[in-house]
């Protein structure tokens, strides 16, 4: 069997016996800077804007709802089942479909919707990144198929960066089958190095920080 053949070749090449003890790996390198919440929020907004995304901070869930309502006016939108979106009252907005549990329906709607609305499990301040853990509450396609993506994120979920993310969830596989980090709108520079946004994923990204 190829498995054994390959593993045997690996062991022979390395001079290791089957089941030989593995020396300790180099210690994990995690460095979390001391930051205050306001600085993290400011950094997140600045970075998202630097990536040509839209970024806004609002005080209350009601204000988030109003912002989203204005942004999707006249468009069809699909919202995820994230409890925080419900808390903001976004599923009740005109033009928003929510509460989907059937894949074919989700696909069909995402393929035609103008906007996908999600929350995010975390956001990373230093790179302007959204961290999405897929689950029954957050489907993958909502932040992927529509040409625009709006993420509504409570300010308490903003971490300083990658190091804090992996300190918070050292084993993402224990929580989800898919963790996706989104840093700016979809882009390509494959033709003549000219930057074009929205090649396969959303070309427009908006992050609404609440609180």
């Amino acid at each position, binding site marked *: *069997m*190829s*498995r054994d*053949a*390959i*593993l045997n*070749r*690996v062991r022979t*090449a*390395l001079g*290791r016996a*089957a089941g030989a003890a*593995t*020396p300790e*790996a*180099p210690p*994990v*390198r*995690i460095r979390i800077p001391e930051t205050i919440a306001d600085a993290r929020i400011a950094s997140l907004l600045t970075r998202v804007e630097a990536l040509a995304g839209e970024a806004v901070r609002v005080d209350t869930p009601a204000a988030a709802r109003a912002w989203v309502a204005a942004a999707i006016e006249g468009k069809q939108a699909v919202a995820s089942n994230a409890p925080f979106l419900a808390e903001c009252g976004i599923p009740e907005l005109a033009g928003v479909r929510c509460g*989907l549990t*059937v894949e074919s329906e*989700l*696909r069909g709607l995402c393929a035609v919707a103008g906007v996908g609305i999600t929350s995010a499990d975390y956001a990373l301040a*230093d*790179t302007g990144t959204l961290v999405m853990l*897929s*689950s*029954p509450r957050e*489907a*993958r*396609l909502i932040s*992927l198929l529509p040409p625009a993506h709006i993420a509504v994120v409570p300010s308490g979920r903003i971490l300083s960066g*990658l*190091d804090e993310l*992996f300190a918070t969830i050292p*084993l*993402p*596989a224990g929580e989800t*089958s*898919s*963790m*996706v*980090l*989104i*840093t*700016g709108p*979809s*882009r*390509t*520079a*494959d*033709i*003549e*190095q000219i930057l*074009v946004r*929205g*090649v*396969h*994923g*959303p070309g427009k990204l908006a992050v609404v920080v609440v609180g």
Partner: protein
Amino acid sequence: MTSEMHRHIHETLGDARLQEAVYTATGRLKESRIAAVAPDVLPDYQELRTQAHALKKHAIENLDAYLDEFERNLEAHGGKAVYCQDAAEVADFILGLARERGARLIVKSKSMLTEEIDLNERLEKHGLESVETDLGEYILQLAHERPYHLVAPALHKTRYDVAEIFSARLGVPHEVVIEKQTATARAVLREKFLAADIGISGANFLVADSGAVVLVENEGNARLTTSAPRIHIAIAGIEKIIPRAQDLATFLKLLARSATGQWLSVYTSFLSGPRRAGEIDGPEEFYVVLVDNGRTRLLEDPDKRQSLYCIRCGACLNACPVYRKIGGYSFPWVYSGPIGSILTPQFMGPSHAPGLPFASSLCGACAEVCPVKIDLPKALLELRSEVKIADRREGRGRWEKLGFRLFAWLMRHPRLYEMAGRMASLFAPPARGGWIRSVPGLMNFPPLKAWIDERDLPPPPPRSFREMWRRR
């Protein structure tokens, strides 16, 4: 150097548009990288490189144990590991699975390993449609060409080339506006994503403690490839293993910065198995194909192992003065640039392209930018020595050897050396455009001719350093 390689080099050097395209594109990537690792934006850059090197070294030296751990964790989350020794085994596995599931259409995201094994051709021969979805790779698939650069595969194509390719192959109107070309690709490929039965991706990292595949990209095509079809197959070289998810805090900070100068790529996917209970979307089946295809041969030599640390960022290509002149297609295999010069002879055997390790000035720019600190110049020197040892065994290179003996003898006799220098300037062939490019009839015998064919020499100065020194 093979005549094929020679021909590509001369073609590239003679093509002013291509020279400009390669030089500007690599220059831009190079500048972006420098800005993204500058001390004020990434103060611990050097420490991160040291850590990345240590992690890769450790993972490769204990590869069997980490593969085992990866497999256990992958299967605990419902995924399946499939080991394949070579191209044929990979194709057989995919063909078999496609037959069982009645699959016909495959969407693919970028993977160098699948280029290595010509996967698309193998699948298409058996009636499967396999579509590349990265914009650059899609253009090349339509044009039947291989990637020109590790991270910018269609670097050599202009918008006019793309207009030709799209109108010829897709039957769309001739269109030279890049935004509109991109929109065309989006529309055509969107249909494919939604109709595909299988998504095939590569893997930037395999995470042992999670059984996870990590994919890094900007377009969203890898996300679609791994989210929309019912089956996801990730194809990865066995050397992609890293020990822990937490090590990504090191690698992710280096990869995008070294590749394009982005702090993070737009999308980083950490995928561990098929969709779980209650999830609305995501693949129902998840396979990770672990491929050897020559990698275990590289493991045997403790020095050569280093080339398995490569994370395919392409920084060495952009930094290399040779790549920036001769371009990607002058390299004989899918991997080009400095990393290609050390991977190709090791994978294909030193006789496949014996000139390759010599196509370098050994300036060290590649080693300086490598995020995992591979000692590329040292590897090139070792490969050169292998080629020469093989030459000697087969009785080749006698003239060259004699030449170098003569040179060594001259170097040990200062007076004679000086005289030889004077003779050389007396008999030097005439320079054209400031360089000596060929030797005249009398001296045009094989060793000298072969030597000058691949080199331009500056004409000897009117006065040697020694003379100037005496007259100072």
